C-alpha cells in the first residue's frame, strides 16, 4: 500500500475516539466500570497507532510534497462557498496528532484509576473520547471551517467535563464561564473566517500556500486586511488559549476532575489557539504589526500569570496559572515569528504539564481529596513514585538542563533576543525566574517539610493574607471534590485530611502514565536540539515552518542559554531557602509575607475577574433583564395581550348594537336602503 493510500486513511485517527464516544454514550451504563474506561483508552490508543503510521507514511514522502489531503465529501456547497470534509496530513498536523493522542492515551489510562467509584464513570470516558475526536478534527481539518468545527467541539467537551460534577454549583458555574468566555473569542475567529472567505474566496488551507511559496492572492492583500485577519484569529486564540484578558476561565476550570485539567487545560485544548496561529502563519508573516501585538500580549500574560501563581494555595490553581504563563511563552514565540519554537514548547509543555497535573491528581487522590497545599507537606515518604515524577516535571518546567523545558523555553527566549526584542526577552526572563520560584514553592510545600496534614485546621484561619479581601474566593482552593460522586472508596479510608489521614501511593493505572511522562520530560528536548550543524534540530526541519531570527553565531546563543539556566537556578535556590521549613508555625506563608500588601492583589488576580463582572457582565445582565422584562414581557406580550384585549373590547362595543329593539334594526335597514338609494340616484342621474 503506498504512502498516499495510507494517508488517505487519516480519517481513522478521529474516527476511533468518535466511535468510542458514540458507543459509550449509548450503552456506556451497561458496559460499566471499568470496561468503559478500557474501551475509551483502547480507542485513543488505536488513534495513536494510526497517527504513528501516518507519521511514517508522511515521512516517506519527499519534503516538497509532504502534505496529503484525504478523500472526503463535499460538506457545504452554497453558491461560490464550498467546504469539503477532508483531512489534511502534513508535518504540523501529524506532529499535533502524535502528541495529542499519545499524551491523551496516557491520561485516559490514568483516569481509569482516578475516576474509580464515580457514579458516572462511563459518561466521563464518553466525554473524554468525544473531546479527543473533536481535537483531532480540529488539528486534521483541511479548512478553517473544519478546524472551527473541532474548535467548537472541544469547547463543548470542555464545558461538559469542567461541570462534570455539576451537583456542585461552583463546577456548573465554572463550566458556563469557560464556554461563554470561549465564545467571545470564537466571535473573533468567525469574523476572521468571513474576512478570509471574502478576500480569498475559500476557507481551505490549500489557499495558504507553504513557507517557501506565498500565494499571489495573499501577498496582494493590503496591510490592513492581513493585519485584521491575523488579529481576529488571535482573538479566537486568546479565548481558547486563555491569554489576557480572556484567561479568566482557566483557573476556575480546575473544578473539573484532574484528568480533565491535564488533558484539556494543559496539553491539548488550550494549545489549539497556538495551533491556529501557526497554521495561519502566512498572515502573521505578512503583517508588520500583528506579530508585535501577539508577542506583547503573550509576554505580559506570561509575567502576569507567573506573579499570580506565587500566592495560590490550591495545588491545581498554581498549575492553572502556570499553564497560562507557559501559553504566553508560546504566543511570544509566534509573535516574533519563531513558529517551530512555539510548537516545540507546546510539545514539551504537554509532557511536563500533563505530568504535573497528573501528579497533583495523584497527590489529591492519595491525600483523600485534599487540595490545599497548606495542609500537605512531607508526603514524599508516603508517595515516592508520585514525588519522583513530580520532581522531574518541576525540573523540566523550571528549565533545568537536560530536561525538555530547558531546550524549548531557551529557544523561545533566544529567538526573541535575536529578533532585537530585548524588552520581550527581559519579560520572559523574569517570568522564567518566577516560574522556577513558584514551582519550587509548590514542590516544597507538598512533598518536603513538616507533615502539616496531621495538624488541626484551626491554625490556618488567622494569618492568611488571602482572606483579606472580599473576593478572596478566587484564591481559595476549589474545595474537595464532592462526596456525592462516591469516589474514593478503596482501601477503606473514609476520613479526611484534617484527621491526620495517612497518604498512600496511587494504583498502577495512575503511576505508570506518570512514569512515562517523566521519562518524556527528561528526553523530550532531544527532538529539537539547537545544534544545527549536526542536524539535531529535527523538529525544525520536519515542520518546515518559519523559524524566526537565527543566532548570528553559536557563542551568543550559548551565553544566552547560560543566563537562562542561571535564572532558573537562582529561582530554585531562592525558593528552597524561603520554603525550606514549609509554612511558619502560625500557618503564615513566608513568601506571601515578603510580598506584604501586594499579595492581596495577586491573590485576587489583579481583580480582573471583578472588572469583567462589573463592567461587562453587569451591564449585559441589566440589558438582558431590560429585554426580558421591558421588551419581551411588556412590549411583545403586551402587544399580543393587547390584541386579545382589543378584540374583546371591540366585541363588547359592537355588542351594544344588538339592542334587541326591532326599531333599531329597522333603522339599520333603513340606513342601508337610503345609502343604496342615494348611490343609485347619483349614479343614474349624473
Amino acid at each position: 500500500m503506498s504512502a498516499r493510500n495510507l494517508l488517505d486513511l487519516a480519517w481513522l485517527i478521529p474516527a476511533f475516539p468518535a466511535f468510542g464516544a458514540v458507543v459509550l454514550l449509548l450503552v456506556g451504563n451497561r458496559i460499566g466500570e471499568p470496561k468503559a474506561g478500557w474501551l475509551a483508552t483502547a480507542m485513543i490508543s488505536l488513534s495513536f497507532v494510526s497517527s504513528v503510521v501516518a507519521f511514517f507514511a508522511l515521512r516517506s514522502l519527499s519534503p516538497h510534497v509532504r502534505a496529503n489531503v484525504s478523500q472526503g465529501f463535499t460538506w457545504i456547497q452554497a453558491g461560490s462557498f464550498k467546504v469539503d470534509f477532508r483531512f489534511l496530513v502534513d508535518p504540523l498536523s501529524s506532529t499535533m496528532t502524535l502528541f495529542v493522542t499519545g499524551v491523551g492515551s496516557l491520561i485516559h489510562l490514568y483516569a481509569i484509576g482516578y475516576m474509580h467509584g464515580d457514579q458516572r464513570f462511563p459518561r466521563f470516558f464518553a466525554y473524554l473520547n468525544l473531546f479527543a475526536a473533536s481535537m483531532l478534527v480540529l488539528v486534521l481539518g483541511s479548512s478553517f471551517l473544519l478546524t472551527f468545527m473541532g474548535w467548537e467541539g472541544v469547547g463543548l467537551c470542555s464545558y461538559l467535563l469542567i461541570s462534570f460534577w455539576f451537583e456542585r454549583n461552583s463546577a456548573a458555574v465554572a463550566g458556563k464561564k469557560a464556554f461563554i468566555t470561549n465564545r467571545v473569542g470564537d466571535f473573533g475567529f468567525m469574523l476572521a473566517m468571513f474576512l478570509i472567505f471574502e478576500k480569498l474566496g475559500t476557507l481551505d488551507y490549500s489557499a495558504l500556500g507553504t513557507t517557501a511559496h506565498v500565494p499571489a492572492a495573499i501577498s496582494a492583500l493590503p496591510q490592513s486586511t492581513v493585519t485584521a485577519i491575523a488579529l481576529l484569529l488571535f482573538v479566537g486564540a486568546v479565548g481558547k488559549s486563555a491569554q489576557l484578558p480572556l484567561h479568566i476561565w482557566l483557573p476556575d476550570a480546575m473544578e473539573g476532575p484532574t484528568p480533565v485539567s491535564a488533558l484539556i487545560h494543559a496539553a491539548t485544548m488550550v494549545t489549539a489557539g497556538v495551533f491556529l496561529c501557526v497554521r495561519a502563519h502566512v498572515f502573521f508573516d505578512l503583517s508588520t504589526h500583528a506579530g508585535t501585538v501577539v508577542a506583547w500580549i503573550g509576554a505580559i500574560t506570561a509575567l502576569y500569570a507567573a506573579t499570580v501563581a506565587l500566592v495560590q494555595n490550591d495545588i491545581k490553581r498554581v498549575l492553572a496559572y502556570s499553564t497560562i504563563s507557559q501559553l504566553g511563552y508560546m504566543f511570544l514565540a509566534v509573535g516574533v515569528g519563531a513558529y517551530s519554537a512555539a510548537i516545540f514548547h507546546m510539545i514539551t509543555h504537554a509532557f511536563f504539564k500533563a505530568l504535573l497535573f497528573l501528579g497533583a491528581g495523584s497527590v489529591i487522590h492519595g491525600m483523600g481529596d485534599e487540595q490545599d497545599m497548606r495542609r500537605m507537606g512531607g508526603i514524599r515518604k508516603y508517595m515516592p513514585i508520585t514525588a519522583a515524577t513530580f520532581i522531574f516535571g518541576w525540573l523540566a518546567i523550571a528549565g533545568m538542563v537536560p530536561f525538555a523545558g530547558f531546550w524549548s523555553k531557551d529557544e523561545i527566549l533566544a529567538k526573541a533576543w535575536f529578533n532585537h526584542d530585548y524588552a520581550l526577552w527581559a519579560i520572559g526572563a523574569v517570568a522564567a525566574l518566577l516560574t522556577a520560584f513558584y514551582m519550587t514553592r509548590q514542590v516544597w510545600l507538598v512533598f518536603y517539610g513538616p507533615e502539616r496534614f496531621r495538624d488541626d485546621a484551626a491554625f490556618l484561619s488567622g494569618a492568611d493574607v488571602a482572606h483579606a479581601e472580599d473576593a478572596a474566593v478566587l484564591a481559595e482552593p476549589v474545595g474537595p471534590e464532592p462526596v456525592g460522586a462516591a469516589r474514593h472508596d478503596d482501601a477503606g479510608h473514609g476520613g479526611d485530611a484534617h484527621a491526620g489521614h495517612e497518604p498512600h501511593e496511587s494504583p498502577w493505572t495512575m503511576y505508570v502514565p506518570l512514569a512515562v511522562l517523566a521519562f518524556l520530560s527528561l528526553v523530550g528536548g532531544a527532538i529539537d536540539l539547537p545544534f544545527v550543524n549536526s542536524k539535531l534540530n529535527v523538529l525544525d526541519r520536519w515542520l518546515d515552518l518559519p523559524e524566526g531570527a537565527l543566532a548570528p553565531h553559536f557563542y551568543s546563543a550559548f551565553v544566552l542559554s547560560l543566563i537562562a539556566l542561571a535564572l532558573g537556578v537562582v529561582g530554585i535556590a531562592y525558593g528552597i531557602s524561603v520554603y525550606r521549613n514549609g509554612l511558619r508555625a502560625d500557618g503564615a506563608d513566608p513568601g506571601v509575607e515578603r510580598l506584604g500588601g501586594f499579595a492581596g492583589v495577586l491573590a485576587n488576580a489583579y481583580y480582573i475577574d471583578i472588572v469583567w463582572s462589573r463592567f461587562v457582565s453587569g451591564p449585559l445582565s441589566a440589558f438582558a433583564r431590560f429585554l426580558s422584562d421591558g421588551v419581551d414581557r411588556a412590549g411583545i406580550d403586551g402587544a399580543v395581550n393587547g390584541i386579545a384585549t382589543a378584540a374583546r373590547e371591540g366585541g363588547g362595543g359592537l355588542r351594544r348594537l344588538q339592542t334587541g329593539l326591532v326599531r333599531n334594526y329597522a333603522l339599520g335597514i333603513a340606513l342601508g336602503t337610503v345609502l343604496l338609494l342615494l348611490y343609485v340616484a347619483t349614479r343614474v342621474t349624473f
Partner: protein
Amino acid sequence: MDAVIFFASAALVLVGALGVVVGRNPVHSALFLLVTLVSVAVLYLQQHAALVAAIQIVVYASAIVVLFLFVITLLGVDKFEPLDDAHPLQRVAAIVLGVLAFVGIIVLVHGNRWVTGAHSTRGALGATDSGNVKTLATSLFTDFVWAFEITAVLLVIAVVGSVVLARRSGHRPEVGLPEAGSPERERTST
C-alpha cells in the same frame, strides 16, 4: 278644477299621515289613517282608476281600519301613551334618513325626466271617463288570471293562519276574557 281636487286631497293625505305618526292615542292614529286612505282613493279616481278606488275604499278604508280598531279595543290599549323615547338617537336618525330618502327619490325620478313615455305593454287605458273597469277586468282575467287565482289561495292561507295564531292555546288563564268552562262562565250561564 283638477288642481283644486288634487291639492285638497294631497293636503288631507299629508295631514292624515302626520296624524298617524304623531297621534298619541292609537285610536286617533287609526282615524287619521282613515282620512289618508279615503283621500288616496279620491286621487285614484282623479287618475282614471275607478275600480281601484272602489276596492281601496271597500278593503282598505273600511275593512282594514275597522280591523285595526277592533284589535285596539280588544287588547285594551286605547289609552294615551307617552311619546318620550329612551333612544333619542333613533328619532334624530330616523328624521335625517327620512329627509335623505325623500331627496333621493326626487332626484332619482327627476333625473329621469319623471316619465319615459314608453309604449303600453299590456293594454291601453280605456276612455278617460269610463273608469277603466272593463279594461282592468279584461286584463285581470286574461293576462293575470294565474296570479288572480293564486291570490285567492293566499287569502285562504291568511285566514287560516290568523285563526291559528290568534287561537288561545292550552289551559292558561288569559287576562280579561272569560275562558270556556271557567267558573264565571258557568255562573253566568246558569
